[in-house]
Every structure is written in structure tokens, then in C-alpha cells.
């Protein structure tokens, strides 16, 4: 009994510490005929368990964080310090009545939440979560990510159209317009990484950012001029792709109530909510993989102490916190501002960034490379900003009744 327990603990430890193949500890125990299935299950189950759990935790932490930003305590009733709020919310949504409008297209109304959640789960399959921890090591991993991610737009349209509600349809059309527009800067900003790393396989891109033996700091792409600009572009575009504030027009509560999931309740609504957050996690994971060194620690010596996947999840938590922070800060943009930002500012800047990455490819990490790419990006950012928002057109806001208004 004790012996078996110790063996089991050893096995868990083998999986948790960075092994060449984490599944190798389990697979010999399984009969030969079942190995393929069990191996697939071992790849899929952690994703199905870890990310929804992370979603549950994030909803609570986000509400608490937003509360603190607004100087209020946030949810603090259920469980210790309110941390079981997600359980209460989950029970509530699961036991709620599932309302389907009479005019709705029942079949599509039913399929839409599934069509949103399934592709989002699929996008996780190409992300390297840790050393040797990638469920599907595709040669065209990045292409897979975007190809699968593109089908969420269809799910959004399905939800909006099947509900037979004008607000739903408006929200869906807004969502599609926004996602199609921001997909271009998103893909272009990641292409700079593909160009420099010379591969579309995500584990290979992570390897390209590993610190050499002589380096003090890791060679993360974010520490280069084009990588920094690309990372910022990626963050903004990912924010818009995930329909998060300040780009949450598709669900804009004050204008179109809840957008495309207005007519959803109960479990289906929970699925939409889950899909949205999982999309955010996937986008953050891609950003980490492409720009923030994936599962690598910032310094080489740190990698010996802490398992690689913990670095990945720490970075994920940091990025999600940034998104929550942005949500707590910025108000929702207007539709024309949204489109102007995508087409007039981010698209040219992403193309210039691609050019800068090409220059970097030829010049390398030399002083000349640094100076030229940085100069190019700063000048183009500054001039595009001047064109988009000429100073003087937007004056200082004067409040009539409060503060510094005319006496």
C-alpha cells in the first residue's frame, strides 16, 4: 500500500518536473492496444480541466480587481473573501431555465455556443505550455491557431442571427466587422516573429527565444524594437479579437443590451462566457509564445528551480491582469474610432513593423540594427499618431459644472 503510494507520488513528480516526455511515466502502465487513446486523453484532459478552472478563478479575481480599481471591495460574500463566488455563479447558471425565443431558429440557436467553445478549445492544442508540453506539435501551428480561431466569427453570427432579435443581429454584425478588421493587424504582427524565427511551429519559436549560454537575459522577442512594437500591436488586436473592453462593442450593454448573446440564458450563456475567456487565454498564450519567450524564465539560472509550465502560467496570469487593468481604465470606443484605429493606424504600423523586422533580419542585433529599426518605428508611430489625432483638434475638456470650468 505505502509502496504503491510512493510509486504513484514518484510518477506524479516525474510528470510535474520537466521530463523529456511527461506522458512516458504513465504510458507503460497502459495495455499496448489502448496506448494511442490514453495518450490522446492525457493530452486533452489537462486542457479541459486547467483552463476552465482558470476561467473560474479569473472571473472572481477580475471582479475583485475591477472593484479595487473603483475603490470598492468587490465580491466578498461567498466563501473565504468571496473566492467561491464562481461556484455560486456556476450553480446559478446551470440551474437557470434555458429560454429559447419562439421565433428563434432552434437548431442554430443550440449549435452556436458549441461552435464558439469547441474551436477555442482546439486553439489550445498547438500552444507549448512547458518544456515538451505541447499537445500537437504542428509544423504550421500558427496557421492552425488562426484558421481555427477564424471560425469563432461564424459562431457569433450564428448566435446573433438565430436569436431573431435585432439587438442580437446588430451585436453579431458588429462583432464580425470588428474581428475581421482586427484579424489583419493581429496576423501581420505575428508574421514579424515568423519572419525572424523562420518557422511557424510554436515550439520552434519558443526555442528561438531561449537564452544562449553566454546571455544574461533571455532573447525574448519583446526585447527587440520590432518585437516590442509587434507585441503592443498584438495586445491591442487580441483585445479586440476577444471582444474585451475597450473594444466590447459587440456586447455594449448600454447600446445593444448584450449583443449576440442577448437571447441566451442558463448553460448556453455560461458557454459563451467560457468561450470568451478561453479565447482571451488562448490569445495571451499565443502572445507569450511569440513575444515573451514561451515557457522560458527571464534568466537562464531560474529555469533550474521552477518548472517550465509554471513560468508559462505566471506570464499568462500577468497578461490577463494587464487586460483586466485595461478594462478597468478605458471607456468603450465608438464604432468609427474602432475602425479608424484598425485600418488607418494599426494596419500601416503592422506593415512598417514587418519591414522593420525584415531590416532586423539583415542587420541583426547590431547597434545599427537597433538604431535604424527603433528610429523607423518611433517616427512612423509619431507621424501616424499626428495624422490620426492632430493636436488641437481635440481640445482640453471643460466641465461646465465641476472643477476648472469658467467661473
Amino acid at each position, binding site marked *: 500500500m505505502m509502496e504503491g503510494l510512493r510509486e504513484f507520488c514518484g510518477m506524479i513528480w516525474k510528470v510535474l518536473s520537466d521530463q523529456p516526455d511527461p506522458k512516458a511515466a504513465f504510458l507503460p502502465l497502459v495495455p499496448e492496444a489502448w496506448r494511442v487513446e490514453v495518450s490522446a486523453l492525457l493530452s486533452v484532459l489537462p486542457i479541459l480541466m486547467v483552463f476552465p478552472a482558470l476561467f473560474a478563478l479569473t472571473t472572481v479575481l477580475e471582479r475583485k480587481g475591477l472593484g479595487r480599481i473603483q475603490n470598492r471591495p468587490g465580491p466578498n460574500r461567498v466563501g473565504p473573501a468571496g473566492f467561491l463566488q464562481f461556484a455560486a455563479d456556476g450553480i446559478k447558471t446551470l440551474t437557470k431555465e434555458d429560454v429559447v425565443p419562439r421565433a428563434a*431558429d432552434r437548431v*442554430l440557436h443550440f449549435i452556436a455556443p458549441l461552435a464558439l467553445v469547441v474551436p477555442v478549445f482546439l486553439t489550445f492544442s498547438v500552444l507549448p505550455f512547458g518544456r515538451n508540453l505541447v499537445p500537437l506539435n*504542428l*509544423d*504550421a501551428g500558427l*496557421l*492552425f491557431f*488562426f*484558421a*481555427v480561431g*477564424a*471560425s469563432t*466569427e*461564424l459562431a457569433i*453570427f*450564428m448566435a446573433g*442571427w438565430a436569436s431573431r432579435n435585432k439587438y442580437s443581429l446588430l451585436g453579431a*454584425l458588429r462583432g*464580425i466587422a470588428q474581428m*475581421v478588421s482586427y*484579424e489583419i493587424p493581429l496576423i501581420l504582427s505575428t508574421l514579424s516573429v515568423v519572419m525572424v524565427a523562420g*518557422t*511557424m*511551429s510554436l515550439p520552434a519559436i519558443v526555442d528561438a527565444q531561449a537564452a544562449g549560454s553566454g546571455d544574461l537575459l533571455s532573447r525574448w522577442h519583446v526585447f527587440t524594437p520590432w518585437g516590442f512594437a509587434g507585441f503592443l500591436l498584438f495586445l491591442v488586436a487580441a483585445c479586440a479579437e476577444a471582444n474585451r473592453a475597450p473594444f466590447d462593442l459587440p456586447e455594449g450593454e448600454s447600446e445593444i443590451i448584450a449583443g449576440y448573446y442577448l437571447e441566451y440564458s442558463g448553460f448556453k450563456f455560461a458557454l459563451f462566457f467560457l468561450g470568451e475567456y478561453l479565447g482571451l487565454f488562448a490569445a495571451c498564450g499565443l502572445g507569450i509564445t511569440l513575444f515573451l519567450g514561451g515557457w522560458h524564465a527571464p534568466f537562464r539560472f531560474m529555469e533550474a528551480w521552477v518548472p517550465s509550465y509554471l513560468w508559462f502560467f505566471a506570464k499568462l496570469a500577468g497578461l490577463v491582469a494587464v487586460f483586466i487593468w485595461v478594462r478597468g481604465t478605458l471607456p468603450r470606443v465608438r464604432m468609427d474610432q474602432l475602425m479608424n484605429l484598425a485600418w488607418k493606424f494599426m494596419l500601416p504600423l503592422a506593415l512598417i513593423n514587418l519591414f522593420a523586422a525584415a531590416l532586423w533580419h539583415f542587420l541583426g542585433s547590431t547597434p545599427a540594427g537597433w538604431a535604424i529599426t527603433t528610429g523607423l518605428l518611433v517616427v512612423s508611430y509619431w507621424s501616424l499618431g499626428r495624422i490620426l489625432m492632430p493636436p488641437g483638434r481635440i481640445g482640453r475638456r471643460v466641465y461646465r459644472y465641476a472643477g476648472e470650468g469658467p467661473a
Partner: protein
Amino acid sequence: MSALNLLLGIVVLTGAVAALSLRNLVHCAFASIGAFLGLAGLYLHMGAEFVGLVQILVYVGAVGILFVFAILLTRGGGVEERPLFSTSWLCGVGVAGALALVLLSGLFKGADPSDPAASRPSPTLKQVGQRLMVEDVLALEIMALLLTVASIGAIVIAMPEPSRKEEDPT
């Protein structure tokens, strides 16, 4: 012929038939997207990773959305009350059926082409890129030009015409 291939083939054919025979245009669009997805699955199963993923990205992410938008812009969201098929539908089906008969009979009458490719070719993305960017670079450039012209042309065609009243002062 594996079971997966057969399943994907059934998905493609039912999707295609449904897309061209359903009464509700939005359902037609979704059925056609299902057929495109099935084709992408077939491509992936054949080992053409790049093409399969491009098929999903282009047909599901772009063409399907375009169809849906066009349907909504031409007020096709509701159920069509008028007849779906033209009066000479029998003729059309006959032509298509005859063509299918000819193609299939030719396919099965000829010498049974055995599968010579025992080794599964799975070109890496790098090879595909080399091919596209080095050997076929002229075709790629022409394609880029075509796409640019097509997108500009599409915008120009679909732009609302200035209304006659403003043009004509009388």
C-alpha cells in the same frame, strides 16, 4: 478508402446538396461552410497540412462570412416563399446527372490506377514556402496583384452610387 475518408466524403456531399436545396438562405450558407470544412478535413487527411489550414482560413473565415453578409445585404435572411428552382430545373438536373454518369463511368472503366505512392508525402511548411517564394514567385506576385485588383474592384463595384437627384440639377 478509410472510414474517416468516407465520413468526410458524406459530410461534403450532404453539405453541398443541402446548401443548394434548402429553403432558408442562411441555412444554405452554413451548410456550404460545413461542406468546405469537410473538404479541409479531407485535405488534412491527405497530408496537405498547409492547404487544409488555408482552406479553413479562407473558406470558413472569409468566404463563408462574405456569403452570409451578402445574404443579409440582399434581404435573404427570411424563409423564401417563392419557388426555389427555375422552371427548367429538370433540364439542369439532367445535364448535371449526365455529366456525373460520364465522369464516373470514365473513372471506373479505365485501367484501375493502383496507388503508387506508398510513402506518405508530407511536405514541411518550409518546403512549401520555398516553392512559393522561389520557384513560383512570379505566379505569387501575379496572384497578389490579382487579389489587390479584385479587392479594389469589389469596393468600387459595391460602393453606393451617388443618387441621381444630386447629380441632375433639374
